[in-house]
């Protein structure tokens, strides 16, 4: 049984949330923005490259924020919740666009 009250535990949770959660959130953001921009007529590779550039900077900011924030629970909720929500939404937007053609 891991010792949840050990000081190492919140740090491990923080690192995991910042690295993995930050990644998931960024993934979701990239996916939803690309999926939304294509139906609006933006060229595919423009949307892709633009979002990759922004995505890397977003991931960096999220990671730094995650390493510093006081509120771990809020960190988990925003990064994982937001990431999963945007990722799912991206699939829905993509499907409805491709069906509508």
């Amino acid at each position, binding site marked *: 049984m891991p010792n949840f009250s050990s000081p190492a535990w919140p740090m491990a949770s923080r690192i995991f949330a910042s690295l993995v959660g930050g990644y998931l959130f960024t993934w979701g953001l990239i*996916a939803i923005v690309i*999926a939304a921009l294509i139906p609006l007529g933006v*060229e595919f590779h423009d949307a892709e490259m633009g979002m*990759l*550039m922004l995505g890397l900077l977003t991931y960096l900011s999220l990671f730094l924020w995650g390493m*510093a924030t006081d509120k771990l629970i809020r960190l988990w909720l925003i990064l994982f919740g937001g990431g999963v929500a945007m990722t799912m939404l991206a699939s829905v937007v993509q499907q409805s666009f*491709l069906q509508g053609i």
Partner: protein
Amino acid sequence: MFSSFRQAMAWLHTWFGLTLGFILMVVFFFGSLSVFDREIDRWSIPESRFEPQVMPSFDEMLLPILRSVEPDEQDYNTNMPLLHDLSQGPMTPRTELPADEFWAYTTHRDPVLIMGVGFGIPQPLDPEGHNHIHGDITIDPRTGKALPDDQLKIGSRFFYPMHYSLNWNWNQIGIYIVGIAAFIMMAALVSGVIIHRKRFREFFTFRPTKQTQRSVLDLHNLTGMVALPFHFFFTFTGLLIFASFYFFPVTHTQLEPLHDYHEMVEASETGLPHDGAGIPAEMASVDAMVAKAKQRWTEKDMPGEVGFLKITHVDVANSFVSIYRAGSDRVALVGEGMHFSGTTGELIREEPPRTAVSEINEFLTGLHLQHFEHWLLRWLYVFGGLVGAICIATGFIFFVEKRKRQHTLQGSSGSQIVDALAVTTVTGMLVATVSMLVANRLLPADMIGKGYWEQVAFWASWAVMLLHAFWRSSAVRHMRISPAWREQSILFAVLAVAAVVLNWITTGDHLLKTAFHYWPVAGVDLSLLVSSAIAVYAARYLKKRENVAVSKAIEFSTQKLETSRG
């Protein structure tokens, strides 16, 4: 948990920097060497020491050679079982695979020409996938003679991949590790600035005569700050090059349907067929297409030579030839691609002007990949990379200097281990690199598997340096400087000179000759000699510091003894 934002950033900077710094050291050092990868190739393969050539006649020279290329045996054995659909019949024998794609690539720094064939797989498991078994060849473009396969291009095929993949190719794990390390590098740069933002002046202070801990931190701040834009841009653009493949492959996974839809639209717009037609057909003269492409570039006021040439769907009715301009006169990686029908030679498509986003992207990635012809800028890249390496190395030393007293008192071996690893990644890496060059000159040119043994020399000498560093690291526990730093510096200095001398003995190319006639080799030799001189200076300086540290260590242990008694 952290009392302030700055404290959080300091924690992140210290611990992430420490764990991934060792990887970053490798990335920065071999990245610096990669700027001159082609020159190192010339040094390591004496047969290729001649002037760069323009792309030779495709119809007369390249085509017959490409027709004789066979699929690579190792590639076939590894990938054929994965790509072939067994339910449709047994695997097509290796030598009977049909050629599907021809390509040839050269740069302004390449005397030799690399080209290759992508062989199609007749019964693929996934018809939409990338179904190719490859066969590559390097030739002397003056005669068409092939260079032996066993000769490893140490610069472009070992040092350069070391920079982005650590040459650890199992499941591309090396690329992922470098990717994570590069991401942490960006975080370390931002957090490093935040930690010290209140004392901005310190960024530009260097007090070399103060105690080691102080001057090391000065140097760490100085090298980090002076080249900050360089470090940040290179890390960022390096990540960007791989971003769509490895970091965020969103459009190759989740949004693949959207990507495929776009490709279909694009194929119908460009007229470049995505799939081969399957009807055999004769190929038209590629040389005539090259002439047309060059004429068109001249009309657009950017005359140039061919850098990359590719034929897709070889020998079938809808084959097409893509010709790209060698872009060595500009930063952005732009090819001004022209696409011709392979059977009629007619121009199918000329690439339209780029959009703003793709211009930015091409500029950024071009800035990193530096195909351009600008020697001053290339050398600045080398120095920028080495300054980064100094920044990381001084980070390690600062870590050790700050903690070794405390660790010694606590009986912890933390700083001892960090110091040994720092020795391994700083001087040990240099010894490994130059050992490989020495092995390259000592092993006979026609030896079977020469390239393999050169790599063995690299890894084995690095492993020995690791053992040596740990063996000598006990000095750190006694508050002294590990003698491994000095000893490996001397070893490096000796080996570097040996490499230059061996180059002279085995090829007859000494500096007085190459300095006037062949700069690629003279440059490598001179860099080795300069590095050797720096290493000798470092070793002598370390000796002095070691003596100072010994007297301090005696003081320290007397103190310790007194406190334990009192």
